[in-house]
């Protein structure tokens, strides 16, 4: 009898060989291994390649201009218009003109990111300051502070326009924050996005595993011979997973709000409802996808594809307004886009159901669509 060595490279190679051979037998897994990283890289490339731009901003230029008389000569200055036209050519913002107050309403309901006004004496103050008076021209900006990237981009665009036209100094930016005048911490701002990420990732993963395990354990083929219909089975899965999702939502909210003290300006009940609605959307998506996964490995691979592409397209990293038009169109089909609007809306902006009804309806509609798709594709017998 030959002595068995403590360590054998050939045994190690046997394990390596076995895993590679197994995977090579699973064509769907190989396809996913190629397809998923490719898709994710492409989407992230498109989304992250650009910077924030085309952010809708409204300007109310009250500047009356100022005329300087020197002897017989007189020269008119209109700095407000100069700043305005500089801002107009800046592709970081998409400018509209209108009254400051209507702009504020627009910021409050999410149409604009900022409403800016130049005072009537804007040019006058700048001229007099130039003549030696120590006065400053106040520019008021009413800004959405719920997304730091957007806030910084809008402010940078405004500041560089002023720099280019009237130089530095002399202008005081009077920054007013929308949504209760709060300047949010970066934690406050990230929690809504984290909630949608966690709900997508964990709910999809758990739902897929729970369902696919039934197929691989052999019980499913036994269930085919019982009075249980495929529809009853799907409904049973969904209710169980919904209860689990509610518990998970509870944990996420408890940690986010209880431990980290993230703000919720709107109704907590509405937030919970929105989270559960979005979780059920993901449950039904998982129920649908489970029809196409023959084993846990295939199922698990689907999750990052959905989570990461949703993350890129939902505006979580770069605002959707900055995407090329066609990507913006694609983003409108990503459920997480609406979930982010709901969570941000309720937590940071204090929106109620009156503001968020369209998003709730869309999320509910997509959830229903996924459920119908699941019912239509569910297998009720062994494969032919």
């Amino acid at each position, binding site marked *: 009898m030959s002595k068995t060595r403590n360590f054998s490279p050939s045994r190690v190679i046997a394990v390596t060989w076995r895993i590679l051979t197994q995977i090579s037998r699973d064509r769907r897994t190989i396809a996913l291994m190629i397809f998923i990283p490719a898709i994710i890289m492409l989407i992230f490339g498109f989304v992250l390649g650009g910077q924030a731009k085309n952010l809708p901003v409204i300007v109310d230029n009250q500047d009356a201009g100022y005329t300087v008389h020197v002897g017989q000569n007189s020269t008119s200055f209109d700095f407000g218009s100069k700043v305005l036209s500089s801002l107009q050519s800046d592709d970081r913002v998409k400018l509209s003109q209108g009254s400051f107050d209507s702009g504020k309403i627009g910021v409050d309901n999410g149409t604009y990111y900022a409403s800016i006004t130049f005072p009537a004496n804007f040019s006058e103050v700048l001229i007099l300051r130039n003549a030696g008076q120590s006065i400053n021209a106040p520019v008021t900006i009413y800004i959405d502070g719920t997304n730091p990237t957007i806030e910084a981009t809008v402010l940078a665009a405004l500041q560089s326009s002023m720099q280019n036209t009237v130089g530095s100094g002399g202008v005081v930016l009077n920054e007013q924050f929308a949504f209760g005048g709060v300047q949010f911490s970066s934690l406050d701002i990230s929690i809504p996005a984290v909630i949608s990420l966690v709900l997508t990732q964990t709910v999809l993963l758990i739902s897929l595993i729970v369902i696919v395990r039934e197929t691989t*354990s*052999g*019980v499913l*083929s*036994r*269930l*085919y*011979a*019982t*009075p*249980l*219909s495929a529809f009853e089975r799907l409904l049973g899965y969904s209710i169980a997973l919904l209860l689990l999702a509610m518990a998970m939502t509870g944990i996420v909210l408890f940690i986010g709000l209880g431990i980290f003290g993230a703000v919720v300006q709107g109704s907590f009940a509405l937030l919970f409802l929105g989270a559960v609605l979005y979780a059920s959307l993901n449950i039904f998506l998982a129920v649908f996808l489970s029809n196409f996964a023959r084993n846990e490995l295939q199922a698990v691979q689907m999750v990052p594809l959905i989570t990461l592409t949703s993350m890129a397209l939902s505006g979580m990293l770069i605002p959707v307004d900055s995407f090329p038009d066609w990507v913006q169109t694609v983003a409108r089909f990503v459920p997480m886009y609406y979930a982010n609007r709901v969570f941000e809306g309720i937590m940071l902006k204090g929106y109620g159901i009156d503001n968020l009804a369209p998003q709730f309806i869309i999320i509910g509609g997509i959830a229903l669509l996924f459920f119908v798709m699941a019912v239509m594709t569910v297998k009720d*017998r*062994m*494969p*032919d």
Partner: protein
Amino acid sequence: MANPSMYSLKEPVIETSNLVKIYKEGAIKAVDGLNLKIGKGEIYALIGANGSGKTTTISMLTGSLFPTSGEIRVLGLQVPKKRRIVAAAIGVAPQEYALYSDLTVEQNVWFFAKLYSMDRSSFLKRLDELLPILRLDERRRTAVYNLSGGMKRRVSIACALVHQPRIVFFDEATVGIDPVLRAFFWDYFRSLAEAGLTIVLTSHVMDEAERANRIGLMRAGKLIEHGTPEEIKQRHSASSIEQVFLKLSEGAVADE
């Protein structure tokens, strides 16, 4: 015990005519023109080598797998067309254990009882009958993953019998059960059959098949011999079914 050689078919509860199953993947003709007639209260054993089409046949009879062509009637109803109605009156113990390993013995059986719309009290009454017979009464609250293969097999049988079906299908149901217990089971099966339960089982253990009222021997999807064990042995002048099986399976080697 009825004399097996004098067997006469009573009211048929399972009938197939020209039953064919060709799997899409591989285009294998798993079942090829099968004509079966199984009566009420009968113990019918489908025997044959691995891959001979026994499990495919059972799956079609239970409505879990749709035939390519041919007809099936179970309890007078067309299958798979009326399979949901038929399902309430049949029980299945498949080849794999097909149990929820995280659940206890009782929880597994309860799940199936619920699928057959049993209420809690009749379930508990039934469980008190079944568990001692299956020698599982001390394992009632044990999680299935802690059980031996033979015990899992018995839990699977419990799940198939809990709702007092009229027909039960055991696909290799007695594999992994020790000989003493197996003999005991056969007595139990026979008492159930006498009370009117039809038992269809598959096996590749020949001495076991000899205990059935009738045997159907399958090869390559076809029924190549059938009748009572005595009839078959006489016809082939053999002393055991195993001899007949070996004679008829010449060339077709069992792959396991």
